């Protein structure tokens, strides 16, 4: 069995047992990326030399008895995380020339745990998109069908884990950007509770919704990486100072007695019937492990997409104002004056979807419209959060589909933003309410993967990981690898 097929747990066992070194693992995966990424376009930057150096350090650390939690393990960072001395593009022409002078908190923590970073993954521009087609660097192809999208915005991270470039990649989720691509690529996507992982150094899209998480093939690896990423950071005022549990230690606990809530609306006509069957089958597996199901009501959940498309653009319109061509990033040539510099730098640097959201956001915050749009959306957001709170009085997790359909063809939806936005209909609620959620592979429809979506209450990552892990002990969907990438 090739090194590329191994999970982080398996690699750790091999490294501990001296079967191979991190340098060997790293070289083998770098070779794999070099051989296969032309088909996928999952990577924006590959940092081979730095990776081999880090691997050598990791091997030395292990030999010296100083192996950290991720010692010698290969990872890829979504190109939204600032990495010192390495291009940090956020998938945009605006930052094509931007080399970050500092590391994001999670980049620091993952490096400190001994991980080896192979590079930076492709993504929708500024994380705005659900298909990876808005990237300045071109779309990412889904390893399960190269004509299909891997989803987005963390399409590069998902595709690189699915194609066995790495066992784990970091990603971010503002409305479903971890979970939707995970579902479409047969990987595990974990979005933690808002505030669980520091946002410092993660380029902001919508600050009140953005959260960093992981894409892996197993829940156990997600637990391992989250344990390193999570925790209070004094540089992020919205990070929450609460202890980080031993996620991996708790993962083996039985789920007998776990109460699973089912939201009826999530199985309505919007859902592909065959996907619905796969998701219900997955829930039946959890029941066979002793979980019970109960129907729960989220009366305002249908409002989550319109609410999101007011709040997120509003925040992004302000967050992206700093890209003005003055201090960093793309600057238009030969500006006539300041106004021209702003207009052309931003006009040239941003793509259509980003412009669309900046304009929407500017509109909803404008004098005379603020109350009708932004304020109203915040009120609805509160209602949705209240609905979840009430539901979690009776259940431990809420289960349903991650996406309405399996992967769609590249080009199919890119000109129809509304249809594209509806791809996140099941995932957005968790962002609006700040809740943790996970997508786990649960089968295939027409040879394309389907994801089971589990949402927990605040800081219930441990419950979600345990549930996903127990499910993966009973099923082997996640071990299936795409043709050509086995």
């Amino acid at each position: 069995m090739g090194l590329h097929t191994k999970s982080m747990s398996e690699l750790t066992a091999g490294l501990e047992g001296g079967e191979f070194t991190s340098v060997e693992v790293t070289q083998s995966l770098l070779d794999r990326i070099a051989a296969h990424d032309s088909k996928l376009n999952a990577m924006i930057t590959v940092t081979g030399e730095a990776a081999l150096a880090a691997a050598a350090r990791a091997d030395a650390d292990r030999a010296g008895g100083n192996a950290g939690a991720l010692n010698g393990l290969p990872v890829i960072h979504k190109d939204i995380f600032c990495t010192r001395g390495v291009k940090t593009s956020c998938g945009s022409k605006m930052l094509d020339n931007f080399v970050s002078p500092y590391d994001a908190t999670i980049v620091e923590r993952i490096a400190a745990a001994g991980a080896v970073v192979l590079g930076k993954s492709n993504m929708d521009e500024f994380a705005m998109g659900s298909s990876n087609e808005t990237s300045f660097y071109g779309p990412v192809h889904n390893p399960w069908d190269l004509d299909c999208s891997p989803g987005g915005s963390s399409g590069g991270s998902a595709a690189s884990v699915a194609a066995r470039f790495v066992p784990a990649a970091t990603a971010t989720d503002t409305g479903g950007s971890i979970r939707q691509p995970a579902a479409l690529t047969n990987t595990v996507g974990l979005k933690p509770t808002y505030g669980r992982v520091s946002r410092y150094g993660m380029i902001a899209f919508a600050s009140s919704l953005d959260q960093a998480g992981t894409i892996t093939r197993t829940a156990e690896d997600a637990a391992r990486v989250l344990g390193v990423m999570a925790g209070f950071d004094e540089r992020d005022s919205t990070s929450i100072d609460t202890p980080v549990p031993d996620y991996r230690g708790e993962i083996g606990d039985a789920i007998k007695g776990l109460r699973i809530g089912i939201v009826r609306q999530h199985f309505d006509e919007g859902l592909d019937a065959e996907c619905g069957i796969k998701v219900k089958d997955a829930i039946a597996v959890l029941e066979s492990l002793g979980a019970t199901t109960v129907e729960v009501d989220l009366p305002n959940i249908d409002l989550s997409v319109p609410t999101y498309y007011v709040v997120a653009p509003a925040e992004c319109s302000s967050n992206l104002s700093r890209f003005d061509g003055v201090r960093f990033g793309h600057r238009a040539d030969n500006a006539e004056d300041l106004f021209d510099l702003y207009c052309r730098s931003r006009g040239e640097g941003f793509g259509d979807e980003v412009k669309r959201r900046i304009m929407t956001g500017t509109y909803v915050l404008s004098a005379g419209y603020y109350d009708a749009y932004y304020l109203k959306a915040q009120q609805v957001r509160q209602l949705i959060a209240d609905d979840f709170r009430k539901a979690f009085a009776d259940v431990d997790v809420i289960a349903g589909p991650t996406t309405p359909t399996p992967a769609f063809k590249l080009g199919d939806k890119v000109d129809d933003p509304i249809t594209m936005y509806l791809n996140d209909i099941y995932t957005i609620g968790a962002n609006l309410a700040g809740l943790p959620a996970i997508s786990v592979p649960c089968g295939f429809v027409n040879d394309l993967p389907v994801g089971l979506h589990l949402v927990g209450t605040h800081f219930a990552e441990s419950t979600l990981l345990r549930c996903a892990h127990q499910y993966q002990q009973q099923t082997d969907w996640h071990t299936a690898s795409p043709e050509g990438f086995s």
Partner: protein
Amino acid sequence: MTAGWEVVIGLEIHTQLATKSKIFSSASTAYGAEPNTQACLVDLGYPGVLPVLNKEVVRMAAMFGLAVSATVAPRSVFARKNYFYPDLPKGYQISQFELPIVEHGELFIADGDGNEKRVGITRAHLEEDAGKSIHEGLDKSSGIDLNRAGTPLLEIVSEPDIRSAKEAVAYMRKIHTIVRYLGISDGNMQEGSFRCDANVSVRPNGQEELGTRAEIKNLNSFRYVEKAINFEVERQIDLIEDGGVVVQETRLYDSDKDETRSMRSKEEANDYRYFPDPDLLPVEIAADFIESVRNELPELPDAKQQRFVGEYEIKNDDAAILTISRPVADYFETAAKATDASAQLVANWVVGDLSGALNKDGLDIADSKISATELAGLLTRIHDNTLSGKIAKQVFEAMWAGDGLADEVIEAKGLKQITDSSAIEAVVDRVIAANPGQVSEYKAGKDKLIGFFVGQVMKETKGQANPGQVNQILKSKLSG
């Protein structure tokens, strides 16, 4: 000029808070560094960075709130004020909009007739300062210095309760005094640590409805505030009397030409799209924190002035001057406690000779060449009749010049007052004998000549004779 018109003024004072680091980053706030050497990635608005509130600014704002009898909000919210400008790195300024930290305060000033007058304080909110654009000395381009970006400001907004330029200055001085008393701002106006925008309108006497206001931006001296408002009031009245209308606009005061000028109208078209900053949590202030701040509050100028009048029995006007700044008040109090001389004498000297000497040398009282206890030593010698007031001034000058303590100067220069009656009598006799003409005139009823005789005696004694004794001896000898 303003007959028939009522002037309505509200002030927005921006005071820089005296924190070591910036409001949302750990960069230094020290003034005068090389451009862009005190701006970290947060101040530069780099991708991915986040603001973290400097807790010290909350304490300072709460202090100010309590000092002006305001409500310190248990919950206030930072909002983003969005606009593009090169000195604003993020494309938005973090400020407070709907929920400021301080609301509903008041303070009292003297109006034009010397009566006490209340000025309401609508609100005071925390915000970050912007950087500076630099145009001079750069060929065809502009530079940006972001050292000031992120410096904490407290913006203090008054009610439109002010009715004249003089009242505006009195109000601004009062705020200036308070922030320095509290130690929350150095109040340095040259460095821009204390500046204001004035909203000015006029309306015919008796009219309820407010006139259209103009906002004069960035006034950084008391004198400019007075002159700019006076110019603006006159401009508005002339305009209306000539059949024109006042336009709501932002104006700049040009101190060289002593006039206000309209700024570009594009500035007016800004829609700032305020919304709560999702990167910062609401500021929650517990009641016990407010109590602890209240306990830390120093004695404020009004209370100190009243106490000085009551405790030291000095004139109210002097007490007002002595309490304008805490170091001056402390100086006075230290000196008053260190001498048996009357506190009024101490007050006279601090307000008079000492202030004069400090001004002449451009010194703060903290750097005074004569300490409070040293001045007390001098005044003690007036009190015990060692020195006359006039000689004391010579001694003061010698002390200022570094010649030593009062007693050392008196000793070295032989300036001790002559209080020996027989010595004075001898001089008086000589003066009477030398001026027979004046003696007869005095005896014929020209009482005013007593001054002449005193002067002669003082001249002979080089000013060292005790003036009271001289007077008394002269009178008895001349009437004999």
